[in-house]
């Protein structure tokens, strides 16, 4: 029987052939939490009466959401996570290291693996040809305790991407366009499997951006083939030995096939308060903006800051705009310092925050005031997301974000590229 990537990976982890809608118990290669969900996982481990995870070297605790801590309650949650890691031997990623999904893909997740995280954007690892998905704290407590989880095998959709991205249009624009087409719950419970000539040529950083945001149309996972691009990414991080090629069988059966030709795409934004409320930049250009955020697990990688610097170098951030930069990891921060990217952006008027989630979660580092408008490279724009239900959030690519920071209003980046 020809298999999708989803069926191959979940079958290997269940120890039997699987089909869509099967309920399975599967072995888990990686389980992780962050500081918003981890303290509850620790408490649920205690409820379960389990002292120590089955495989502590495969359990990771990331402090990234409120990092460094802005409040004593959160400082105490961080202590809970640090003590748990110390007691159990789990891996701890502390303040300043970066966002869980950026680090999990840089350092841990490999092709063909199954990873579960107590964060909805745990789907990011699909970029590496792994099956990775988000769950709640109790599910991750069980995954910590037994190195297993239960899953319903999702129906898979084939997403075929063809064409060349026009100047000023990126993987982020494609995904916002896809979410606008499918709707925020259009792919609920599905696994999206990306393929096609454009995907084959796509750098890993773009694949990571795309896999990260599939949850915004409801998908359980978003998988890319593991190929030479994957090998290069792993080798550059000293993990070349973890490479294995992986793709769906050519005649695998999909519930649905979606096709996108990117050559006609425009820079695209999601308008308040839903990711599927998409418009092209021409339709919303001119909307006055107070804050711009470039970073997060969606677009906080080095190539994202390179694009921002390409737009902003030698120019100035508008005097009425706060431009915030939040690198996805310490490694990205170091590389961007090393090659002069952050010097150029700070000279243009940007403010840097610690690697982590930054303003995206609404806890710190740029909470919006009443009626304020933010253009952000993050992945969701729900009412209240950035700490204030009276704030308005537009989602966009780093290029749109940078052009907007210059003009103080939503702007088309193509004139600056």
């Amino acid at each position, binding site marked *: 029987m020809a298999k999708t990537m989803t069926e191959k990976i979940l079958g290997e982890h269940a120890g039997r052939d699987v089909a869509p809608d099967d*309920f399975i*118990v599967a072995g888990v290669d990686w389980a992780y939490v962050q500081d*918003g*969900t981890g*303290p*509850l996982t620790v408490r*649920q481990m205690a*409820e*379960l*009466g389990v002292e120590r995870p089955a495989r502590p070297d495969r359990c990771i605790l990331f402090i990234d*959401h*409120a990092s460094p801590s802005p*409040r004593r*309650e*959160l400082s*105490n*949650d961080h202590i*809970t996570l640090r003590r748990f890691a110390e007691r159990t031997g789990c891996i701890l990623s502390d303040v300043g290291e970066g966002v869980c999904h950026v680090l999990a893909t840089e350092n841990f997740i490999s092709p063909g693996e199954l990873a579960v*995280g*107590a*964060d*909805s954007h*745990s789907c990011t690892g699909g970029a590496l040809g792994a099956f990775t998905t*988000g*769950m*709640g*704290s*109790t*599910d991750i*407590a*069980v995954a910590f*305790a*037994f190195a*297993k*989880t*239960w899953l*319903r095998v999702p129906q898979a959709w084939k997403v075929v991407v063809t064409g060349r991205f026009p100047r000023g249009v990126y993987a982020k624009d494609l995904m916002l366009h896809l979410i606008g087409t499918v709707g*925020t*719950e259009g792919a*609920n*419970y599905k696994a999206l499997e990306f393929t096609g000539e454009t995907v084959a040529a796509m750098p890993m950083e773009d694949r990571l951006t795309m896999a990260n945001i599939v*949850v915004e149309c*409801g998908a*359980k996972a978003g998988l890319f083939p593991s190929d030479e691009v994957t090998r290069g990414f792993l080798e550059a991080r000293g993990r070349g030995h973890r490479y294995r090629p992986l793709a769906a069988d050519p005649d695998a059966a999909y519930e649905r096939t979606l096709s996108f030709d990117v050559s006609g795409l425009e820079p695209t934004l999601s308008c308040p308060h*839903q990711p599927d409320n998409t418009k092209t930049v021409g339709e919303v250009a001119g909307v006055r903006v107070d804050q711009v955020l470039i970073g997060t697990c969606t677009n906080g990688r080095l190539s994202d800051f390179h694009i921002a610097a390409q737009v902003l170098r030698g120019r100035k951030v508008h005097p009425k705009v706060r431009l915030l930069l939040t690198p996805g990891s310490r490694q990205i921060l170091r590389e961007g310092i090393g090659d002069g990217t952050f010097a150029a952006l700070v000279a243009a008027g940007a403010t840097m925050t610690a690697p982590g989630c930054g303003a995206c*979660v*609404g*806890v710190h580092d740029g*909470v919006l005031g009443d009626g304020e408008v933010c253009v952000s490279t993050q992945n*969701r724009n*729900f*009412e*209240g*997301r*950035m*700490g*204030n*239900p009276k704030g308005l959030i537009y989602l966009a690519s780093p290029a749109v974000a940078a052009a907007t920071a210059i003009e103080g209003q939503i702007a088309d980046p193509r004139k600056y590229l």
Partner: protein
Amino acid sequence: MPPRKGRAWKFGDGISTDHIAPGRLFHLRSNLPELAKHVLEDARSDFAAQVKAGDFVVAGSNFGQGSSREHAPTIIKLAGVGAVLAKSFARIFFRNGINVGLPLIKCDTDGIAEGDELEVDLAAGQVRNLTRGTTIPFTPLPPVMRNILDEGGLVAHIKKHGGLEI
């Protein structure tokens, strides 16, 4: 589980976990009784203070979209809500609801108005609208999920079976 009776509180489409348990209250996540005092506050400011034990949250499509924060279904349960009825649920919220023992019912909610008296019968797969004299059928949960819910959630399930028993 015997049928439950209560009053309907109506919500719209796309209620997100940011409406239910907002990020601005992140610091209360290790203090769930306090966080529960703000449940759904950013969708309806009158709800948290006035909801009574056994009442129902009745919503449109894609209830619980967004974050994986399990605190969202947990504080709905802590507030005393007997069940959430919606046209559809986001995947992670649905799984979390079952794991924490909060009944979630996918059904047509258009025939329910604010304040209607409802009786929810999980075993029969029926919502009876006592105010309007109508019955709304729903498809029961798949057996794996129903077992976890009936046993009181995932922690109770694991304690009973000593592991995942699906």
